[in-house]
């Protein structure tokens, strides 16, 4: 009896070790908490990703960090130490993502970072940032401001890292585009009124206003500005573009202009647009699974992260087996050399100095018209 049990256990153990070269991807997202509205979209994308990476089966471990950076770091440590993941992905808040990237660098595991983030060189060595940089996106807004001849620009944004990032990006283009940012108002995500901030902006009367919010939180200052009689253009950043923004803002946000990835308006892109086929297919699949009008930029980031991995894994598999430190290093090196991966947001070309890899093909300008986002021609 004991011999039978022992041989059964041994067989099971042997079976486990001779298992396929399964790749393990550890994901931490803020599915609850303040970032829940974005986190849910990131998680939904994992239902649509391919079941294999580079021909090998892949297992995704998705954990919730409740939009708390400490939890994100804890999840990342658990994933690298206990589950021995080959690559990390996450999170959907900038502070959480930065924490995860630091853990990844310590554990010498590559990480696909799913929000724009500023990372130190040692951490960036292991981090690959999927979304467009805020500088790239605000560059499109800056070009619009220059085209309209705006000399003074008012800014109102979240009083956290995201508001800072958008402000810095807007500021970096100020000199070249000939405008000056005259107000730097901030508001909290949970605020119920921004009257004081909006009055301040109106008293200065800039030629345009840029809002550094995200999701439906970006609607609050826009609606308040319109209610107080501000008639000049109001621009938004790429974090604001989803259907709920229009629902919450109502008539007041008609005409709002924002920059975003091409997967929001794939039907209107010209046929020659590099990502049209991939963006259109993803948006169709996403909306047929999750409902019409549910398209958003965030699911695209997660999906693109997996597409980039799909391109890099075959190279890494040639050098090492998944689950080993050599594989993680080989995967890192392969990720650093991906060329022309067409994602839903843009075309990725990474190299040793550029761990983001996107260019102007990753942004389009959209505006609110008739209850949905339309491509600005």
């Amino acid at each position, binding site marked *: 009896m004991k011999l039978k049990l022992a041989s059964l256990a041994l067989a099971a153990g042997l079976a486990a070790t001779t298992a396929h070269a399964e790749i393990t991807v550890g994901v931490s997202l803020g599915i*609850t*908490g*303040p*970032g*829940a*509205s*974005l*986190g*849910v979209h990131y998680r939904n994308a994992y239902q649509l990703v391919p079941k294999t990476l580079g021909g090998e089966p892949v297992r995704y471990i998705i954990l919730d960090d409740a939009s708390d950076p400490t939890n994100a770091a804890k999840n990342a440590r658990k994933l690298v130490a206990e589950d021995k993941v080959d690559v990390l992905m996450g999170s959907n808040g900038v502070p959480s993502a930065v924490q995860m990237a630091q853990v990844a660098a310590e554990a010498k595991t590559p990480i696909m970072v799913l929000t724009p983030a500023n990372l130190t060189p040692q951490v960036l060595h292991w981090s690959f940032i999927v979304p467009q940089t805020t500088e790239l996106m605000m560059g499109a807004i800056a070009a619009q401001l220059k085209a309209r001849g705006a000399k003074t620009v008012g800014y109102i944004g979240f*009083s956290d890292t995201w508001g800072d990032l958008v402000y810095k990006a807007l500021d970096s283009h100020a000199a070249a585009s000939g405008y000056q940012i005259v107000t*730097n*108002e*901030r*508001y*909290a995500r*949970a*605020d*119920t*009124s*921004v*009257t*004081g*901030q909006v*009055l*301040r902006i109106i*008293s200065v009367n800039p030629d345009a206003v840029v809002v550094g919010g995200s*999701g*439906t*939180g970006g*609607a*609050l200052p826009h609606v308040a500005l319109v*209610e107080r009689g501000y008639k000049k253009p109001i621009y938004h950043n790429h974090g604001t573009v989803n259907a*709920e923004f229009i*629902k*919450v803002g*109502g008539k007041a946000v008609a005409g709002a202009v924002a920059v975003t990835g091409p997967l929001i308006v794939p039907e209107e892109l010209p046929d020659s647009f590099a990502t049209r086929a991939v963006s259109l297919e993803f948006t169709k699949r996403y909306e047929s699974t999750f409902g019409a009008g549910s398209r958003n930029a965030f699911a695209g980031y997660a999906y693109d992260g997996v597409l980039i991995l799909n391109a890099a894994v075959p190279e890494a598999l040639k050098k090492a087996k998944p689950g080993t430190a050599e594989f993680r290093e080989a995967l890192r090196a392969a990720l650093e050399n991906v060329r022309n991966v067409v994602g839903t947001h843009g075309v990725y070309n990474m190299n040793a100095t550029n761990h983001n890899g996107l260019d102007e093909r990753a942004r389009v300008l959209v505006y609110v018209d008739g209850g949905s986002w339309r491509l600005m021609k």
Partner: protein
Amino acid sequence: MSADIALWLAQDGITNGAIYALLALALLLVFSVTRVIFVPQGEFISYAALSLALLQAGQLPGVVYVLVGGGLVAAAFDAAAAVRDRALRRLPTILAGYVLLPCAIAALAWWAAPRKVDLVWQVLLVIGLVVPLGPIVYRIAYQPLANASILVLFIASMAVHYALSGLGLVFFGGEGLRSASFSDARFKLGVIEASAQSLWVIFASVVVMLVLWVFFGRSLYGKALRATAVNRVGARLVGIRTELAGSLSFLLAAFIGTVSGILISPITTIYYDTGFLIGLKGFVGAILGGMASYPLAVAGAVVLGLLEAYASFWSSAFKETIVFAIIIPPLVWLSLRSRHVEEEEEE
């Protein structure tokens, strides 16, 4: 800052202050009668606001599941206590109050939601859906702990807050919602333009405060609540059941929270976790009133609203810091002024 900007900000501050005043009253009421620091007060606001927005969109708000489920659990608790006390004739009333009433309201909501009835009926339906949650929460979470210390009750409050806010995320989703204004009219009062919605807020707040004042001063139940607030043991001695007092105070708190939620829902986007912060600011207002006096709590809350409005103009990045930092001076003053008395709990 010119005079009309100052007036705009004052109008905004008073509108917000009216909501904070209602919440401060509710928190103070619950605290004085049951010694519970009712952190989940904010959840009633979120539930009411989101339910109204969903009803206006023609969807059934998920609160019905919380209501029916909570009612069943509370009925089970009460039924178990009745069986243990061999007082089976209590069972019909328990059944009627905790099971049939929530089910009837839920059925009404299920029937009325897709029909997009008039605003008045929608408001009444939201009140019917969210207000019974007050006594249900009291029965499930606080009545078993009625004699515990304030700290234990506070920890129970935090647990209830996380439970309700988690349920809010499940039933309402992570995105924010807004409902349509009661009326789009704008009135010119001198140099400022006041929207009808903010006038509604102030008007409704004043009416609720008057009703509470009359209730506490003139009605038997109101006096019973005041008696329990003054001395719980003495109230029990004269025949006021503490469970009744607790239930009633939670009912009133839920009513105030629901009314606040309905009032601010058209003004701002409410998320499933917005109510917590608003409730917290109401709590600051109550502290400014020394956690003892209702008129001072209302005054403190209005001052808080004004302070928040002006701080958001002068230094918007530090607005939250300023708003929460003004708890400190009154607390320091109160603790220096009163001599330290040991908590008078014998149990």
